């Protein structure tokens, strides 16, 4: 009796083990790394995909920063990368040298950046910043909130502008948010000399770590103003300024204004930068983030699953999440081209890694 029982349990165990391994064999682990700005959206996307569409696909995304993400793509330690700045310079050369083809960079969504401020008595959207003014603030030419130039642009709140010093708050960590912001500032401000990059040499201000650090510093310092991702400004319920765009109109952030700003002809390598959108109602500070892929993958199954997941993010369910998190979805025409590029990726068992 006892032997029978143990034999039975042994069989059960073996069967259990076998089913477990076969289930494990089906699970596809995909790893990605890169931009922190893209992290909330990518993680939400792949989590939803795993739960509602294909439970065998597990995508892990490490938000280590765009630069570190690109390095990992070059080193071949991840299946995809994400970045808010396209491949360029030494990294692009390293990638070409190692893989002997151009990196495949596909835009997945856009984001926008707002000026968030802390001015006692002045509510969200009440402050208007014209280009000359915010250029003056970031370069340090305008140092007081009761400056005549700010008052002149804000007749309705001119008497409420406090006699405070302007405290400019910027990111101290390297970030794609800073790249998008400085790319705009470089284009718009004639007196800006620090250029554009994921971290720049700021002429004035104090640096804080991450969107959350910038938000905390602004909230605590009356007279502070800084730049944060739109989704973050909304999450933290921060007061944000209305800005003058290239057409000379004063615009408030809205998803529509940002979407139309990004609706520009996308070049062949998808490296679309819109430092200063031209439409009359466009929101002025917008940028994309890209997913960096290889053109050859060694494993057919992994490639299929990755492509399926990425296509899903651009479908109706994926775009619903994009909008929910206040990112800007890609326009339909771009999506068709993205799908064509995804379909063109090939399987090569000897692909370089």
């Amino acid at each position, binding site marked *: 009796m006892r032997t029978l029982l143990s034999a039975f349990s042994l069989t059960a165990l073996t069967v259990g083990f076998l089913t477990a391994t076969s289930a494990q064999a089906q699970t596809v682990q995909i790893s990605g790394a890169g931009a*922190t700005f893209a992290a909330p959206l990518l993680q939400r996307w792949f989590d939803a995909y795993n739960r509602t569409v294909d439970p065998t696909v597990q995508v892990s995304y490490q938000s*280590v*920063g*765009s*630069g*570190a993400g690109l390095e990992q793509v070059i080193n071949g330690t991840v299946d995809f990368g994400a970045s808010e700045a396209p491949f360029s*310079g*030494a*990294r692009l050369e390293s990638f070409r040298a190692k893989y002997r083809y151009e990196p495949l960079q596909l835009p997945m969504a856009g984001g926008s950046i707002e000026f968030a401020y802390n001015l006692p008595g002045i509510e969200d959207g009440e402050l208007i910043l014209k280009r000359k003014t915010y250029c003056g603030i970031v370069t340090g030419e305008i140092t007081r909130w009761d400056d005549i130039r700010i008052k002149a642009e804000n007749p309705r709140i001119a008497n409420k502008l406090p006699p405070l*010093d302007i*405290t400019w708050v910027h990111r*101290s*960590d*390297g*970030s*794609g948010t800073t790249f998008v912001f400085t790319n705009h500032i470089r284009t718009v401000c004639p007196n800006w000399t*620090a*250029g*554009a*990059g*994921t*971290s*720049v*040499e*700021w002429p004035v*201000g*104090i*640096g*804080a*770590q991450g969107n959350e*650090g910038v938000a*905390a*510093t602004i909230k*605590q*310092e009356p007279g*502070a103003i800084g730049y944060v991702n739109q989704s973050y400004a909304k999450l933290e319920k921060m007061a944000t300024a209305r800005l003058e765009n290239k057409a000379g109109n004063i615009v408030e952030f809205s998803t529509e204004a940002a979407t139309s700003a990004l609706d520009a002809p996308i070049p062949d390598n998808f490296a679309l930068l819109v430092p200063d959108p031209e439409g009359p109602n466009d929101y002025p500070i917008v940028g994309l983030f890209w997913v960096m892929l290889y053109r050859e993958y060694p494993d057919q199954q992994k490639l299929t699953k990755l492509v399926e997941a990425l296509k899903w993010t651009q479908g109706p369910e994926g775009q619903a999440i994009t909008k929910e998190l206040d990112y800007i979805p890609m326009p339909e025409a771009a999506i068709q081209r993205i799908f064509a590029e995804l379909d063109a990726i090939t399987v090569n068992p000897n692909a370089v890694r």
Partner: protein
Amino acid sequence: MTSAATGYGSPPNPDIDVDIEKKASLSRAVDVGFVRLTLALAGFAGIILIWVILQTTEAALLAIQQFGLGFLVTARWNPVENIYGVLPQIYGSLVTSLVALIFAIPLGIGTAIFLTEGFAPKWVTEPIGFAIELIVATPSVVLGLWGIFVLIPAVRPIFRAINQTLGWIPFLGGPAPRGPSLLIVAMVLGIMISPIIISITRSTFESLPRSLKEGALALGATRWETLLTVMIPAGLSGIVSSIMLALGRALGETMVAAMLSGNANRINISLMQPGSTITGLIASQFGEAGRLQVSALMYAGVVLMVLTLLVNIVAEIIIRKFQNLEQ
């Protein structure tokens, strides 16, 4: 033959004899093995240190070739044009650590004296000792958040008042203080490193022979005199080494510096203005750094290691001096 052998008492039992030898050789093997093991472990620690230094220097080589020693005296950090120098960060690291010591030394030594000299009953000193250990266990990111959300709002009005009245002193001058500054970093660092001073100083006092204190008291010295002329001089080498350890810790602390310094790439003589430290710079820029920038950050890391090494050498010299004094 056998009878002669028996003449010496009980015959030697060959079995026991072998056993003893075996045991002796076994325990000797264990001894030798243990010595070799500890040697290997010690060597391993040394090898890891050398390995880290070599790897960091290798990664920094690009920047070392490009910027040379000019890196140490350049006050620019421009990733766009790839111009790098760490003078403001060296200044920030040294100043925050030294000012942290100014906060931590009186706090640390005072607490250690209070805890060891029988000023209070055990039920008072024990919880305090426990609380001090908890400070050590607090993650620095938590202390950084505490700095942002509690300390900065609390001290800002005080800083502003000091700045208005004593602004003529260069260290306290500049425009009205905002939130993050080198002084805030130094204050939090002071809190972080004081437990090191407390615990080492405390055990130094505890390990001093009782006869020293009793002798002084027997000679008619007051408690003050005993403390200042006998206890503190006798424990000086321990106190100094605790301070140097704390200084090393302050130089290397990263999270607090990155969160509270304001990360401004400028040299402000005034402590109430934002600045930055080497550790804060490395931590905040590493993720998004370009190739040469990574190399420059590694170079900054090498600079910090050399700086810490110099501090340790100076500490060693000072401690030896004091030890000679004691003898």
